[in-house]
């Protein structure tokens, strides 16, 4: 039995309605309890902001495309080098660091759970192997269904139950967590050298539209009672004028779940562009944010873009090709059999580019215009909008109008007439930030029930203790202190163990992988479905029996089971 007592902590715990109270947190064997004995290890958190461990609900840190980013970008490995020290492995890399680099940097920022934004089911083993080398965060994997042939066939036939059954079988086979739709239909079109530009265009051969795929899978998702909702990367990413498509996609979402959203739209910054070309691009964050405000069934994440070097990687193959034609730099493109595609290119977001400046402003506008912080979460779509180590800067930008004004002065001339950011006075408070970086994520991902994202007895003891006095800091003026505090925790506690102290990692760590399994009736078990098996053997390069990820790939795992209602 190990016990820990975090004393005199200034706690903000939005899921339990605690908006800033000095209290003690008792931990026994990795879980938060009412009280512990005198022999417990004590952490004095006096004068420190104490929050539940951070959760990143959309990041790309593990898997084939991240690793291909590392192959492609040897120059990225010149930055961020640290030597082996104590229990820490050597690390390197800036936008696509080594797995340990990711893990240590997240841990120093107080993040204890992360969701890999896109895992191609066929290549799940690689993702799980890299999860095993990301020791200080619990991990989940969004599983791609955007161009899945059997799913699209079921959608064409209007058979929601069959689509749900295929999703259930695939998630259990690859140990995935949720349904990810990346440019639904578009990745299959890309196999024909085409793309879908909005939700009503048809996918060749299958004769289904993105709207049908989205609607069917939202309903299938709720039938399976999966913890998370459908996780959507809308069609037409990064194209001026795409905001209409984004709002159209939002309108597809019915309100089916009282506990969380029914549709999660990710990196909405890339989907809120007005104008008709790069020459007249402007911000359309306002209509997008108003749509979110009208629809409680929607949650978005910012997908904030931060200036500097980074690598973009997504399962949206055609979009990456368009980016390549803009930048003329390196490009990688990949087709994953009957499932999806991917593309990678390096980019440099510059303050001298009006387009980049507008992008930067849109992310912040979204976060400030969405009234309810539970509906707009903080993320950069790491590393697409910028590496996650920029989160503290984003927090400070949201909390300080003065900081935003200073940054606005440095933008390219001509930006101001295209954005609304200069007119926004709102400054988020500590509670809003706690929602946008942990509590909101826990609710959106549906992992509150397993003790994530809050600090009441019964919760898993993931605690981040930031060295900043909330009562003596005015974030709108002292934003530099805010940045500093969020960059490095005084303590990060993971599953009841202190894992980082002032940015130094203390233990090797073992994470766990959270995955979802929906139990379906025997006659809907795709493992026994003759048509599914026949098509599998006909079109895949692997045998169906070799497809599922063996348990050996998961060192510690937590299966979130649900009873499907099919």
């Amino acid at each position, binding site marked *: 039995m190990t016990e820990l007592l975090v004393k005199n902590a200034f706690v903000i715990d939005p899921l339990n309605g605690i908006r800033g109270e000095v209290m003690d947190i008792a931990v026994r064997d990795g879980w938060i309890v009412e009280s512990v004995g005198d022999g417990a290890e004590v952490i004095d958190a006096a004068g420190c902001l104490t929050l539940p461990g951070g959760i990143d609900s959309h990041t790309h840190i593990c898997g084939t495309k991240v690793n291909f980013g590392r192959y492609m970008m*040897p*120059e*990225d490995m010149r930055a961020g080098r640290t030597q082996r020290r104590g229990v820490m492995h050597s690390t390197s890399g800036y936008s696509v660091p080594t797995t340990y680099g990711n893990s240590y940097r997240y841990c120093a920022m107080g993040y204890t759970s992360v969701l890999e934004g896109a895992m191609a089911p066929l290549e799940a083993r690689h993702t799980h192997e890299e999860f095993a080398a990301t020791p200080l965060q619990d991990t989940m994997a969004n599983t791609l269904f955007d161009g899945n042939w059997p799913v699209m066939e079921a959608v064409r036939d209007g058979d929601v139950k069959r689509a749900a059954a295929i999703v259930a079988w695939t998630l259990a086979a690859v140990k995935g967590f949720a349904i990810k739709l990346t440019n639904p239909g578009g990745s299959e079109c890309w196999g024909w050298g085409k793309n879908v530009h909005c939700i009503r265009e048809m996918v060749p051969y299958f004769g289904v539209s993105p709207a049908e795929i989205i609607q069917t899978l939202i309903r299938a998702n709720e039938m399976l009672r999966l913890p998370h909702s459908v996780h959507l990367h809308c069609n037409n990413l990064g194209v001026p004028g795409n905001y209409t498509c984004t709002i159209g996609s939002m309108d597809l979402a019915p309100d089916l779940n009282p506990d969380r959203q029914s549709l999660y739209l990710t990196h909405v910054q890339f989907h809120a562009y007005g104008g008709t070309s790069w020459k007249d691009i402007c911000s359309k964050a306002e209509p997008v944010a108003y749509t979110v405000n009208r629809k409680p069934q929607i949650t978005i994440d910012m997908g904030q873009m931060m200036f500097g070097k980074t690598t973009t990687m997504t399962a949206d193959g055609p979009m990456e090709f368009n980016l390549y034609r803009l930048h003329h*730099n390196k490009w990688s493109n990949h087709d994953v059999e009957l499932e999806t595609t991917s593309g990678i290119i390096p980019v440099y977001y510059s303050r001298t580019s009006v387009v980049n400046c507008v992008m930067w402003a849109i992310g912040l506008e979204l976060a400030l215009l969405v009234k309810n912080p539970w509906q707009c979460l903080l993320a950069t779509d790491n590393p697409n909008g910028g590496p996650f180590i920029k989160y503290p800067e984003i927090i400070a930008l949201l909390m300080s109008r003065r900081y935003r004004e200073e940054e606005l002065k440095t933008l390219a001339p001509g930006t101001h007439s295209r954005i609304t950011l200069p007119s926004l006075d709102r400054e988020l408070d500590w509670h809003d930030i706690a929602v946008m970086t942990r509590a909101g994520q826990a609710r959106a991902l549906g992992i509150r029930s397993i003790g994530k994202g809050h600090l009441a007895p019964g919760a898993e003891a993931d605690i981040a203790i930031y060295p900043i006095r909330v009562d003596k800091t005015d974030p709108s003026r002292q934003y530099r202190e805010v940045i500093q505090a969020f960059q490095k925790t005084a303590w990060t506690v993971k599953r009841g163990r202190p894992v980082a102290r002032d940015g130094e990692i203390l233990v090797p760590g073992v994470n766990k992988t959270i995955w979802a399994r929906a139990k379906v009736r025997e006659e809907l078990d795709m493992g026994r479905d003759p048509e599914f098996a026949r098509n599998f053997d006909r079109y895949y390069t692997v045998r169906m029996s070799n497809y599922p990820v063996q348990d050996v790939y998961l060192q510690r795992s937590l299966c979130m089971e649900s009873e499907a209602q099919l």
Partner: protein
Amino acid sequence: MRVILTAGPRKNPFIPVEAETIVPARFLQGVDGITVAAGNRILPLTDVFLVEVEGTAADPSGVEVVLRGDNSRLKRIGEYMEAGKIRVEGNIGMHCGNFMKGGEIEILGGADGWLGREMRGGRILCHGNASHYCGSGYRGEKHGMRGGYLEVRGNAGDFAAEYLAGGEVVIRGDCGDMPGVEMKGGTLTIHGSCTRPCGNMTGGTCTVLGSARGMLPTFRRTGTVVHEPGGVILTRFEGDVANRGKGTLLAREWQYTL
């Protein structure tokens, strides 16, 4: 001030020694505290070299470092060097003059790969042969040498002056395959022959005074020029057209076959 470093005998002379600390400015504060990495071990400089110091100097430009003995596995000397002189009396290992900004390196023997990589200024003179990637960028880097002067009296290996962005590279002998590939500025002069020069070049000037074999078909022939001194007539090409490049390639003899 003259610092003479004589490489001592080593148990396993194949283990590389990374010596980015060997730059003239570093010796102004004395030899104490200077370390090098021999394989995975950090050793004091005096364990690897016999060190002799003659005279004193007021600033780095008055320091000359002389390297003697077998230094063919000694890497990264003169990294970020800004002034002073390094004279290598023999061969030198990889990455000699990385990111060099000023001063001079003279190598009496040959140099291994990545000589003067991503150099920004100063002079490097190599009397022997240089291996692959001399004056180029490192893996993934989009800018190779950006300034300064790099001369190889012997031959150079493959990918000489890859991603050349500025400065001047002169190869007195022959080059291997693909010199000046992805070149975007600066000048590259090859007195001997080479194969497949300047693929994907977008700017700068490359002169081949010998023969260029395996000429890429994506260069547009735009006439002839007379090269001084000597009055040699060179064919002038522009390209690489495949990359909408505006570079200049001058060649005395050229053929499309290898």
